[in-house]
């Protein structure tokens, strides 16, 4: 679950003019762990990225060597290519399905609160649950998915055990996991649309699709842009499902940047190089965030 996009409202709660020194103290309790564990490691990480650092011995300054190595490392290329494929599958599916599910629940049919619970439930469980349940569901020989596809005359698909399908298999599990957040964000946005506007359109004879296209969709533009960005960033950071379901395999076919970073650090003990690759991923994520902000500003 990714959370919180800034609120750009500067609002003084109190109108008093004097300065409240105690404010610093109240903030300090949060600010201290925040600085130590959210900010400091990032700065330290930038330094580590320019060194050769294994768990024993002192770090050695290497300049940009790690970055040059990364650009020539075929496994870096594979990991970043994979994550683009993940994005191409997961982001549109989560956005479109999340919106459809939200439109359905928002209609207020009988039992729609049950539907809401079911759509959101997978989002609250751990990646381990998601991963193991889907490893079982996607089992080539005895999995439910292949069993029911068999009725349609489809041969068993080696979802997680072939280089061709592993990425798709992990994506299916990720969609099931991630959809809840997009769904809730869409639902909240739909509930913010005044009912009178939609009623007015209905009275004017606008059909379901027209109402969606001309009344609802324009209201949803900002939230769609937000969901796409949040989901894209979440997908660029894909790791735990990959770790649980395929270990990045077979033959790195489902690996991801974070999985590769994990592998470099924990298996190969190349902490400097791992930090350099992490920094590259960070730059990519930052670019996505900035691009979304700029696009949204242009639209509004």
């Amino acid at each position: 679950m990714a959370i919180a996009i800034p609120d750009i409202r500067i609002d003084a709660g109190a109108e008093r003019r004097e300065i409240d020194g105690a404010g610093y103290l109240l903030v300090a309790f949060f600010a201290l762990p925040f600085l130590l564990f959210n900010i400091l490691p990032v700065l330290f990480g930038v330094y580590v990225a320019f060194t050769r650092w294994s768990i024993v011995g002192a770090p050695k300054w290497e300049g940009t060597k790690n970055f040059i190595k990364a650009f020539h490392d075929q496994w870096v290329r594979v990991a970043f290519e994979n994550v683009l494929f993940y994005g191409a599958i997961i982001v549109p599916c989560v956005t479109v399905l999340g919106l459809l599910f939200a439109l359905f629940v928002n209609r207020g049919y009988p039992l729609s609160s049950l539907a809401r619970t079911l759509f959101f439930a997978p989002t609250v469980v751990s990646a381990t649950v998601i991963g193991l349940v889907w490893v079982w569901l996607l089992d080539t020989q005895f999995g439910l998915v292949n069993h029911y596809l068999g009725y349609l005359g489809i041969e068993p698909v080696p979802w997680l055990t072939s280089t061709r399908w592993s990425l798709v298999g992990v994506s299916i599990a990720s969609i099931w996991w991630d959809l809840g957040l997009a769904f809730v964000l869409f639902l909240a946005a739909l509930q913010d649309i005044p009912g009178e506007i939609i009623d007015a359109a209905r009275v004017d004879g606008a059909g379901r699709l027209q109402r969606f296209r001309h009344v609802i969709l324009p209201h949803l533009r900002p939230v769609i842009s937000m969901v796409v960005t949040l989901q894209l960033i979440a997908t660029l950071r894909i790791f735990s499902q990959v770790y649980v379901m395929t270990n990045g395999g077979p033959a790195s076919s489902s690996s991801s940047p974070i999985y590769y970073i994990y592998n470099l650090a924990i298996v190969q003990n190349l902490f400097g190089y791992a930090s350099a690759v992490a920094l590259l991923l960070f730059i990519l994520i930052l670019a996505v965030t900035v691009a979304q902000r700029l696009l949204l500003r242009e639209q509004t």
Partner: protein
Amino acid sequence: MAGWLDDRLEERGLDRADLLIWPLGMGVAVLWGLPFVWMVSTSFKYPSDVMTVDIEWLPSRVTLSNYMKVFEYPVLRWGFNSVVQAGVATFLCVLFGAMAGYALARMRFPGRDALFYTFLASLMIPTEVSVIPMLLGFVKIGWASSYQALILPSIGNVFSVYIFRQFFLAFPKELEEAARMDGAGPFNLFFRIALPLARAPAIAASVIIFTLNWNNFLWPLLITFDESMKTLPVGVAAFTPVVGTRTQIEGYSIAMAAVTILSVPSLLLFFFLQRYFIQGISQGSLKQ
């Protein structure tokens, strides 16, 4: 007859298409929940009834042996670690977040807004960038595989500050003023007046942050070298059946028992406090 039907539908603001959409949508919703049913159902089956060609949605023979076998692993210890890790980190994050959120919303001091925007801007930094350097740091000071290492990095979750600041921005001034007249200092004001009234954001922040911490995966995986210091999600991840070995035959029934245990706390929390989850998330991210 058709006219009567249309009238009834119109009364509810529906039309004929809804008669199709409703069952279709509910069908998809049920489908969406089925993996959980399959998970629980498999966990109660005998291992020999799991890998079968015929699909048994409800087990014909029920057994608890999978759960017994799960407890042959240090699952209780992992569960205890998870409770300590998620519990303490959530408590501190919500308490400190409430204090900071209150100060940022209600008090005046230079640099207040700069602080808030620094907190928000940090959301653009993915935690994955900091895990490697943090790992090096914790290992250097000898805190690998420790509760401090599991707890400390989760305290600075900005979501908590954000949700309390939003709440306190709309807080009625009169309450504070009355207390201030009585000579209450800022800490008194916060703990006696403001915090007790912030029940709703406190619950919302707690359930969401607890869920995030309970499910946290990458950091506990990296920092726990000791089997006995693993958290539940990391420990249970090792139940993945390995293709072509004996664990594949027995594996799924045990694995499903393990993940059922793992998912119960978060699912229960969600079912009973659903409103807070959904409000918290939409509040936390929608106000652009």
